[in-house]
């Protein structure tokens, strides 16, 4: 297989979510001297962009999005350490969780799928996550974005508590805060001082990319 053939097949297999084949191709590419960046930027990311476009059009359903994202994450598991060595800029890292007192996670899981599908590295802390845990995990993973999810009006006030905890730990300005969940509105997000809110998973991904791009543009590298 030529390098071009590997890139093309990597694109095709990621698109249909063939995870074992994607892993094999990445390893074969590496053995063959293909650069990790080339596989990421010329196959994996374009493929996932196409997945996202198909989902937006309604051609792809949620499970198709999910398996493509899994294939992408399988490839990234191999490539991530190599990419780190070269200093290549990744799409972004997300720390995510359902707030304390709330055990609902279907919506959050859907956002995870879409984020991973877009090439983000997602650290999902699960449900009923305490403010201290969010602080610890943000300190550990240094994500571009931390996401708080709430399904109940009674747990939405934890957004503010979490943001306060980040402030107290002196890391509020190091991280973008996004919030979401069925009862959450833009007004509520603004009121608690979040940086971003989206009404659904695919909008959340677009907004996440946007917010990161704006921040990177604002901070001189």
């Amino acid at each position: 297989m030529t390098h071009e053939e590997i890139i093309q097949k990597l694109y095709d297999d990621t698109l249909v979510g063939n995870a074992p084949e994607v892993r094999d191709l990445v390893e074969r590419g590496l053995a063959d001297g293909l650069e990790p960046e080339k596989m990421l930027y010329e196959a994996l990311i374009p493929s996932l962009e196409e997945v996202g476009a198909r989902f937006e059009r309604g051609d792809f359903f949620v499970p198709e999005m999910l398996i493509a994202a899994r294939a992408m994450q399988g490839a990234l598991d191999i490539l991530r350490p190599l990419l780190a060595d070269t200093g290549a800029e990744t799409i972004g890292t997300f720390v995510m969780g359902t707030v304390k007192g709330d055990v609902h996670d279907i919506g959050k899981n859907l956002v995870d799928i879409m984020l991973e599908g877009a090439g983000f590295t997602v650290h999902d802390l699960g449900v009923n996550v305490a403010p201290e845990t969010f602080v610890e995990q943000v300190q550990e993973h240094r994500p571009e974005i931390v996401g708080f999810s709430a399904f109940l009006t009674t747990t939405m006030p934890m957004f503010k508590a979490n943001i306060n905890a980040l402030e107290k730990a002196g890391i509020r300005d190091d991280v973008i805060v996004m919030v979401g969940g069925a009862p959450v509105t833009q007004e509520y997000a603004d009121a608690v001082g979040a940086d971003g809110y989206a009404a659904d998973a695919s909008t959340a991904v677009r907004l996440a990319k946007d917010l990161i791009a704006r921040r990177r543009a604002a901070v001189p590298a």
Partner: protein
Amino acid sequence: VLINRLPRYDILSEEAVATLDKGWRRIVSELGIEFLHDDALDAFRRAGMAVEDTKVILDPDFVLEQVAKAPRAFDLQARNPARSVHIGGDHMVFSPVYGCPFVRDGLERRDATLADFRNLARLAQAFPQLDSVGGTICEPNDVPLDSRHLDMVFNLMTLSDKPFMGSVTSGPNAADTIAMAEIVFGRESIEQTPCVISLINVNSPLRYDDRMLAALLEYARANQPTIVTPFLLMGAMSPVSVPAALAQQLAEALAGIALVQLIRPGCPVVLGSFLSNTDMQSGSPSFGTPESAVGLLCTGQMARHFGLPWRSGGGLTASQAVDAQAAYEAMMTMLPTMLAGTNYVMHAAGWLESGLVSCFEKFIVDVEILRMLEHEFTPLEVTEETLAFSAHEEVGAGGHFLGAVHTLERFRECFYRPLLSSTANYERWRRDGGKDAAARASEIYRRTLEEYVEPEMDADLRAELKAYVDRRRKELGD
């Protein structure tokens, strides 16, 4: 209360019932159910069930032994004894929408407030189609969180004299609900005949969370019924097959019902069903779907199989507005609700936008649907008299019946009289403002609120209730 004496629409064969029965047995005995509360785990452990961390592996026969202790039917007393209800058998109790953070009023969608909560409670009190005033009829976002349950229960108990639903957001909130019920009814009375029914959702798949369990335990100890409801949006919380969802629903609900019986044998409990599907294209929940209608019919048949009163149904829809979709999806759920003889119907009026919105106009649309179905499900009297031979004799061939004696004796009540529907001809309809059903519903709900009369309550009792709320609010720091 509607007593549905028409035949049940049972669509499962005996083999299918047996297969579903095997299905739930396998889930509880091979996979187990998680209970995130020590008291629940202790109860199962003491009863001899294997407990691994938070997971309980259940013997299906033990589950059924416990389930058999639950009454097949029970009474729920109301502040006004004339409004007490019977839950089970052929009885159908209708309760309004529950749990919505937003309200819709006309074209406006906004955060729900206590004023909205009070108005929706007034509507539920005003329409005889609703047998219960409900519970969290909308979330009153403008009052402090820690004491919000006190405001809700106080308003439900004072604005209505129908049975109400209790707070389930924590054990202490459930205890407050019971304490307030004791003030009005007396402890002895509610131990005898319960007065508050509460919704316990399973955090499906296969898990009960600690808050819901704390509330369930509190109510069970006080002999107050809970509606134990697996929360199943197929595709997300259960497999994408209706039989799989049904088996899971039984596994989860029967395990919870067994727990109630372990805490207090004979405590009334309702097998709950909230079963619809995820739109696999977008990931959003869907309502009023054919799959949910099938699931509802099967749930009824299985509940009767286990001899349990059960809950399902409602005017469910995913629609964002009071439009054609809202009405046909609501009817798509309400018709099987009736065919299946659902004992407790939540969300029977006011549900919109997949349950995110309590809507005033949709409330009226749903009341119209309930009124029509009530009529449709009244057994037909076929007698010599209803054959009306005398009217034929009087009119003869080629005449008309508008003035026949038989007609004159009956014309005002012989047919269903709509509350909301218009039969006006086009010219008249246009002269009257050309209003569609949503616009007419808006007028009806406003008029109903104007005409609403608060049911009387003994002044001392009311003061005592208020004093409890004030004291607890202070203790809770609000």
